[in-house]
C-alpha cells in the first residue's frame, strides 16, 4: 500500500490484476515478470492485452522498464465505444475477450469491439464457448438486451489466425445480486463442430463420435456443423468441438477441444477428438454447479460488484485460477467470500463435491454511464 498501490510478482494472473485494477481504480505494479527466464519480460500477447485496455479506457498510464520485467499500471476511466483490435496470435481472442467481458458493462458508452486474430486454439476458451456460456451468465446479473452479442464473422485457427469476432455489450449502472443455488437438471446438450481448411466431413465425424458417448444420458442432443470456406476460414487448417449442457434453470456447463495448431503437437483423429471432448463434458457435469469452471471468476467478480445485498452461487470445485482470483478480489475490493463445501449425499448421483459461495456486494456503481 505504498505510493505504487498494489504490488505483485510474476506474469501469472496478469489479466485479472489489470482488470481488477481498472475496476477498482487502484494502481498496480507487477515486478519480476519472467525475470529468471532466458527471454525475460512481457510477451507480445501481454503487450497486446495492455494496448486493448488502453483502447477502451481514457487516461491510463502505463510504464514498463527497459527489460520488460516491471510494469506499472495506473488505470484510467472506462470509455467503451467502437474499437478495433488486432489480438496477438500467440493467444486466442478468448484470452482478450475474458478481460473485456469483465469490463464491458461498466463503460461510459456501450462497447462494440471488433477483434481480429485466432478464434480457436487448444489453450484458451474459444469464442464459441464464451458465447454459449458467458453471455447467459451476464444475463443472470442483469446485463442483457439487444446490445449483447458475440459473433464469429471469420474463423481463424492457431497459429495463423485471420479470424474476426464482434463483441458488443450494453452498459449498466449497477448489477443485480443473484441467488444461483439450484442448478436444475440438464435438459439438452448443444454443440458446434467446426472445421476450416480441411474436409467438411471432419465435422460430421466429430459429431458422430461425440454423440456415441453422451447419447446414453439424454436424447436431446444437437451438434451443429460449422464449415467456413474461402476468406472466412482464416489462415490455418484445423477443427474442433464445443459442447454445452443446458439445465432447466438456464445454466450452462461446457467443454471443448481443438486440434493442435498446424506443425505443433500430435495430430488427433476427429473421432478421438469428439469422444474426448464428450468425456470432458461429463467431467464438467461431474464437477457441476450453476457456473462452469471456465466462468467461475466472471461470476465471482459480478457477485463482488453487485449491490449491497447477499449473493449466492453454487460452484463446482474451485480452479486454481479462481482461487487466485478470490485472493485478488480481497486485495482490490476487501471482499471475502463465505465458502461452504457441499459433499455429495449418500444416495445422490449428482457428481462430486460442490461449493456454495456467498458474499455481500460492494455496491459498485458505474458513475461514468450517461443517464438519458
Amino acid at each position, binding site marked *: 500500500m505504498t505510493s505504487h498501490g498494489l504490488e505483485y510478482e510474476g506474469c501469472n494472473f496478469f489479466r485479472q490484476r489489470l482488470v481488477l485494477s481498472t475496476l477498482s481504480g487502484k494502481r498496480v505494479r507487477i515486478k519480476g515478470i519472467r525475470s529468471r527466464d532466458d527471454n525475460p519480460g512481457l510477451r507480445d500477447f501481454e503487450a497486446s492485452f495492455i494496448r486493448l485496455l488502453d483502447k477502451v479506457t481514457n487516461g491510463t498510464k502505463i510504464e514498463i522498464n527497459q527489460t520488460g520485467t516491471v510494469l506499472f499500471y495506473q488505470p484510467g476511466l472506462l470509455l467503451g465505444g467502437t474499437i478495433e483490435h488486432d489480438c496477438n496470435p500467440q493467444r486466442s481472442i478468448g484470452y482478450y475477450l*475474458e478481460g473485456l467481458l469483465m469490463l464491458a458493462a461498466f463503460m461510459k458508452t456501450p462497447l462494440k469491439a471488433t477483434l481480429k486474430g485466432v478464434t480457436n486454439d487448444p*489453450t484458451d476458451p474459444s469464442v464459441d464457448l464464451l458465447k454459449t456460456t458467458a453471455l447467459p451468465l451476464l444475463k443472470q446479473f442483469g446485463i442483457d438486451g439487444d446490445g449483447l452479442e458475440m459473433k464469429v464473422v471469420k474463423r481463424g485457427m492457431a497459429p495463423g489466425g485471420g479470424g474476426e469476432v464482434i463483441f458488443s455489450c450494453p452498459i449498466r449502472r449497477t448489477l443485480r445480486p443473484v441467488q444461483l443455488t439450484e442448478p436444475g437438471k440438464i435438459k439438452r446438450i448443444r454443440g458446434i463442430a467446426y472445421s476450416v481448411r480441411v474436409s467438411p466431413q471432419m465435422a460430421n465425424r466429430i459429431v458422430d463420435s461425440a454423440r456415441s458417448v453422451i447419447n446414453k444420458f439424454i436424447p436431446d442432443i444437437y451438434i451443429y456443423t460449422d464449415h467456413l470456406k474461402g476468406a472466412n476460414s482464416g489462415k490455418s487448417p484445423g477443427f474442433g468441438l464445443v459442447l454445452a449442457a443446458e439445465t432447466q434453470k438456464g445454466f450452462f456447463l461446457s467443454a471443448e477441444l481443438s486440434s493442435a495448431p498446424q506443425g505443433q503437437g500430435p495430430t488427433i483423429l476427429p473421432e478421438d477428438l469428439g469422444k474426448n471432448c464428450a468425456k470432458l463434458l*461429463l467431467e464438467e457435469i*461431474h464437477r457441476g454447479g450453476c457456473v462452469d469452471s471456465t466462468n467461475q471468476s466472471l461470476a465471482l467478480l459480478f457477485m463482488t460488484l453487485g449491490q449491497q445485498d447477499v449473493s449466492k452461487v453454487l460452484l463446482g470445485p474451485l*480452479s486454481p485460477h479462481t482461487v487466485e482470483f478470490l485472493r485478488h478480489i480481497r486485495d482490490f475490493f476487501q471482499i471475502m467470500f463465505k465458502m461452504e463445501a457441499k459433499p455429495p449425499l449418500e444416495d445422490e448421483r449428482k457428481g462430486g463435491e460442490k461449493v456454495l459461495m456467498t458474499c455481500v456486494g460492494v455496491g459498485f456503481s458505474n458513475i461514468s454511464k450517461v443517464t438519458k
Partner: protein
Amino acid sequence: PKTTEKDLKKAKALEIKGSDQAYETDGALRWKDDLQQKASEVFLKHQQAAPNLRKHVYGTVSSQGAGQGEEAELGGLFRVSRPEKSKTNLADAADCSRFHPDSLHNWDLEEMLHSIADCFVTGKWEEWQDAATLLKQDE
C-alpha cells in the same frame, strides 16, 4: 470419505485372500502386494484435498516465506541463482482460466457414468418434483 473407508476394508480383505493363494501362484499376484498401502495413500490424499476451504484460499502461505531464507551462498560472496522450481512455476506460469485437474475420471467405466445419472432430466427426481409421486398425490 465413506467410500474410501469401504475401499480400505475391501483392500484388506483382498490382501488376506491374496496371501492365501500366494503359495500356489507366486509372482502372479504381485500386484496385490501393496494394495492396502495404495488404498490408504489414496485415502490420505483425498483427506488432504479437502481441507478447510477458507484457509486454503485466504490463509497465509507460510511455506513461501520459509523458502526464501535458504538461498545458498558460495564462500559468502556469490549467490547461487537457481530458479526455484515451484515458486517460479506458480508466479510465472501461463495465465489461463481453464481448469486442468491433476487427474480425470475414467469415463469408460459404467460406475462413473452412473455417478452423474441424476444430473439429467432422465435421472431420478427429488420426491417433491417427481411426476409419478405428484400424480399419486392428486388421486
